[in-house]
């Protein structure tokens, strides 16, 4: 196992860089970046125009290797740390749409993504670390309307070393319900996601227990909310 859990900046897979204009919050899903096509569902039914998933996590691991090879403690550490750190999943509805220059948009209110977008953007922000000085009076929530725009800048899905590259802008905007001081701003960055074989990618995501954080691995298309 080349890469297990480590700090950001240790051995990485794929690439991502983000800048943040949200007050006091960086965004660092930059440890492991990979993609896969969801060609078959859990019952192994084939999808003629499968969804394409790009996953970005702060934790570092090798998504090509079966995480089942880790000892229980290492896997528990990885799973727990993933939940405590930034992560992002982009789910493109159709492989045929993922082409150079293609643009995709998702709009969400809080954690509820609006139906009808062309990409499902599943954002997991690192939960607030709390201490004795954390008060409700000092808490400033994030603005609740979140618009994610993705532009594909390069794709080599048919090549020998397939990958997807793209730019991502996630904008936070206040709505009527938001507190007047709710943080507005954006997370702006880019990614390069090598494509990993579907079976091992889904197996690893299942082992990492990211259903709550990222809604992965994907369920059957018919049971998923359409993006």
């Amino acid at each position: 196992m080349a890469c297990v859990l480590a700090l950001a900046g240790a051995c990485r897979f794929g690439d991502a860089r983000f800048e943040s204009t949200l007050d006091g919050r960086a965004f660092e899903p930059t440890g492991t970046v990979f993609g896969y096509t969801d060609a078959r569902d859990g019952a192994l039914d084939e999808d003629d125009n499968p969804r394409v998933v790009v996953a970005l996590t702060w934790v570092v691991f090798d998504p090509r290797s079966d995480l089942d090879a880790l000892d229980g403690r290492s896997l528990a550490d990885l799973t727990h740390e993933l939940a405590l750190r930034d992560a992002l999943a982009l789910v493109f509805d159709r492989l045929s749409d993922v082409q150079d220059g293609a643009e995709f948009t998702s709009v969400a209110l809080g954690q509820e993504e609006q139906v009808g977008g062309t990409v499902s953007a599943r954002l997991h922000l690192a939960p607030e670390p709390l201490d004795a000085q954390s008060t409700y009076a000092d808490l400033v929530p994030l603005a609740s309307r979140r618009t994610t725009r993705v532009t594909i800048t390069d794709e080599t899905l048919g090549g020998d070393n397939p990958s997807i590259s793209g730019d991502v802008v996630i904008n936070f905007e206040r709505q009527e319900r938001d507190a007047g001081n709710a943080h507005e701003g954006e997370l702006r960055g880019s990614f390069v996601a090598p494509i990993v074989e579907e079976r091992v990618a889904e197996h690893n995501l299942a082992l990492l227990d990211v259903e709550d954080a990222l809604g992965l691995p994907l369920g059957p298309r018919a049971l998923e909310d359409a993006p």
Partner: protein
Amino acid sequence: MRSLTTALLLAQLPVLGCGFGVEGDFDGFPFHPGPTMMAVADRNALLMQNGAVVPVRRADGDQRLHMLFTAAPVDGAVHWSGARADELSEIVRALATHDGLLLRDIPLARFARGDALEAVLEEGQSSGDFTFAVGMAWPDGAVARAIGSRVRLTVVPRALELSVRGGSLAGDITIVRDREAGQDTDTATGRFTLRFSAALDPERLTEANLAVAAPVLLCMQAAGPGLAAMCAHEEPEPIIDETGVTR
């Protein structure tokens, strides 16, 4: 019969300082949910409204008090969910293998008025002024016998002081265990009293930690002493923070 140790503890309990004293057991079945105590005045909340996280000050009548007493060696000044995986696992295991007592949603205004408050667990259903969980571990050497499953908790406030960044409280908690219909005649019953006096803990941090402890204590109460250790794998309750709902 009151032991000398507990009698001394009660006698020496300072009125305004921090203290903790216990008296009684359940027919020889010991219960020591201390010395760690966490108490929080729940005066604020984060609501989710159409996806927005909205901090609100609860109305006076909606403010609550939560308390946790546990013999587990845990540090309430640390954010448990944010700890390393092995540390969190150890906290949950410790909670599940030591006596503990959780009281939730005590009406703060009524506690402040000095009202005696009561809650009952009967036939697995709780009712009353607040909710609670009596988590009993199976101590070494304890005789295996049924424990009365009808539980009545009474809280008698002695003092409450609230300030912007904290405050303090004191009171007495009495737990009475009785037989329920269908339990053997030699079922362990009895009365246990806990006298406490403590500073109120930081609201956000303590509520987050109680979200870890509560499922464990509720599981222990449901499981009983013989199976309480199975609660060492309980998942924390989700909480709301600036990012939304966090699990």
